[in-house]
């Protein structure tokens, strides 16, 4: 394994973790807003606040990890993506700020539970994946172009691209699906029958759209980036495994059996698909300008970063274990029997 591969794998892994934990967070916000809209708020709010409030900052750090890490391992990305992403990334920042301030002002703070705020928070959960995911489309090439030696983003090409829009739709459906499956499990653990039923229904509703859009993207790629498409076809068997895992999740949810396993299968489904997608994207970070090799940092820095990563992981894993043991796997806490908030 070369240093380049280690670097990109670490980043891809953390991006994957962010996709999962952030999807839970984004989707939950949306379901919360939706149930407030249909006057069923009391069903979900508790569950959502018990799980999300203690962990959202950790979720956010996964995102920070990704963008700090990519500049560290692949500094040239700063030049191409930094220059072109000013507007989309700033919008994403504003949306993240809405979410962060909702936790700060509405759940920790003075409990400002104004409906408008709940809706904004919910809506930001859908708009965020929609504003972050176009970066994946851009990495396929054709949207970031050069004027002289300066890159710029061709908004017209981007906004008229079916590929971009299918990625946006996929990200939204995936967020809702991942979130619903997780919350079904969590609500079930909390012994909250009403919430479980509701979330189970949402999980089944969103399963179909999620898988259909995911398949759709592969076909969009055929026209947009044939090279990438053919590499995806080479990896068809990984996508097949991913599909089987998907069937497993839906089956368990449908049969109301073992929601924990259902969620694990779902993580497996996204993990396989996400990695197969990443591998087929190799070696490009941005078609056709940047590969992981020509944008890589120097060797001394790469080794230093990897050592720091291993040391950091040694600190991180036990802490995360503790966090999850206290808030995810602790029966009394999940059930809301004990409230120890400062």
């Amino acid at each position, binding site marked *: 394994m070369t240093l380049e591969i280690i670097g990109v794998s670490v980043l891809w892994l953390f991006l994957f973790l962010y996709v999962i934990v952030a999807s839970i967070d984004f989707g939950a916000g949306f379901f919360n807003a939706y149930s407030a809209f249909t006057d069923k708020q009391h069903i979900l709010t508790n569950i959502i606040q018990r799980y999300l409030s203690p962990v959202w900052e950790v979720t956010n750090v996964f995102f920070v990890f990704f963008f*700090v890490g990519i500049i560290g391992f692949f500094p040239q990305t700063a030049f191409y993506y930094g220059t072109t992403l000013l507007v989309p*990334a700033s919008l994403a920042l*504003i949306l993240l700020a809405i979410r962060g301030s909702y936790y700060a002002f509405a759940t920790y703070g003075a409990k400002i539970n104004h409906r408008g705020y709940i809706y904004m928070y919910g809506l930001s959960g859908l708009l965020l994946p929609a504003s972050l995911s176009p970066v994946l489309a851009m990495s396929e090439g054709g949207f970031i172009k050069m004027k002289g030696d300066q890159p710029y983003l061709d908004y017209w090409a981007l906004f008229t691209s079916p590929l971009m829009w299918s990625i946006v739709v996929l990200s939204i459906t995936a967020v809702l699906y991942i979130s619903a499956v997780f919350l079904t499990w969590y609500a079930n653990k909390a012994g909250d029958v009403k919430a479980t039923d509701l979330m189970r229904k949402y999980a089944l509703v969103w399963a179909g759209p999620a898988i259909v859009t995911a398949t759709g993207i592969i076909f969009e790629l055929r026209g947009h980036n044939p090279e990438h498409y053919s590499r995806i076809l080479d990896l068809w068997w990984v996508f097949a495994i991913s599909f089987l895992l998907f069937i497993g999740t839906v089956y368990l949810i449908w049969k109301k059996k073992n929601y924990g396993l259902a969620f694990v299968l779902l993580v497996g489904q996204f993990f396989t698909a996400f990695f197969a997608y990443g591998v087929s994207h190799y070696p490009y970070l941005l078609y056709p300008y940047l590969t992981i090799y020509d944008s890589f940092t120097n060797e001394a*820095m790469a080794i230093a970063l990897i050592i720091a990563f291993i040391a950091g992981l040694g600190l991180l894993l036990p*802490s995360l274990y503790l966090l999850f043991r206290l808030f995810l796997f602790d029966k009394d806490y999940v059930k809301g029997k004990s409230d120890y908030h400062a």
Partner: protein
Amino acid sequence: MGFEDTALLSRILTTMTLSFHILYATIGVGVPLMILIAQWVGIKKKDDHYILLARRWARGFVITVAVGVVTGTAIGLQLSLLWPNFMQMAGNVIALPLFMEVFAFFFEAIFLGIYLYTWDRFEDQRKHLLLLIPVALGAAASSVFITMVNSFMNAPQGFDLVNGELINISPLLAMLSPAVPTKVAHVMSTAFMTSAFVLASIAALRIVQGSTHVYHKKALLMTMKLGFVFSIATALIGDFSGKYLAEYQPEKLAAAEWHFETEDEARLILFGVLDGQEPKYAIEIPYALSILAHGVPSAEVTGLNEFPEDEIPPLWIHYLFDTMVSIGMWLAFFSFVYVVAAWRKWPIITKKWFRWLTVAAGPLALIAIEAGWWFTEVGRQPWILRGYMKTSEAATTSGQVDLMIILFAGLYFILGIGTIVVLSRMYKRNPVEKELAQRQKADKGGDPE
């Protein structure tokens, strides 16, 4: 839009975001230590007041942390969005502390979540206190790492630039630049000092507003003592920072002091206005600049005339420096008077005007933080990486920075107002008197809440 223009706009946006973030970041670094001390004193003295103090501070702290996280994420991304050329180079040389900072964030965020949601979950308060240590360490570590990045910008090392190529890169050397010792120490001590005075201001405000509960008096005395200790540390380390500047960035020190001719026995100039190269209406302290720069009254201090015209920072940083130093001196003096007066039971402390001076301490410290950072950052101009890259060469070429400025200005405005409104509402709805009464009732077997 021209190149220069986007550089100026990018500077405005960076300044805005950092100036906003630094207020929350400073509190984020300092307050965990204050909570730690209060809770520890409470356990030692078996005094419920201090424990409740820690608990109420912690509640407010979550809110400032959350805004700190939001604005921190903004600045983290904006550095790449607005300064892509700089980050491309920085990524090659100084990425290590930035990367390590993320782990410090993880550590802090995880344990903060645990700490907040486990009050009274343990029989033994000390176990709960232990959970706060990683929070304080994580916050301190993140400020150490980010300050290392900033130090590198001021005194770059750990690489060679040959024909535009970076070679001989040493991440460790880059991380441990000569600016690190004074900068890190000064940033940490000012964070502790500022947090202590901000908390003191809150207690003093409650007393001014008419609360007579001993709880506030205990809080005030404790924070003023801490503020005194850290303001002495700050002044001492600030003096070392001056010596660092004299050696490594003499142009910054000279600009701050309007010191044009290289000379020995240099005087220190406070405030005043500049007429050509002559300061007017200024307070002058003989020999003081030589002492600040080198520790001896006779030492020679490099003047601005030694530097090319286009490498001199703007001269108005003089006022920033003076503001910072004056506030530092004042707060050290004032907190000393307070502590002595409290100990000797002088009636002066109970005077209303004196209370109001105490209320002013926190905002003053925050102003000093802003002045200090502006001084360092503007004083580095025209360089973004001193001696290697000019700020104007580092900026993005994107044409939409002006729109983003408006967008983020709106965001920070709302977040700033929101913080104040939410914090004051939170404490007004649940005043300490009420909470103490409830706890006593609970202890006697009444209904909890």
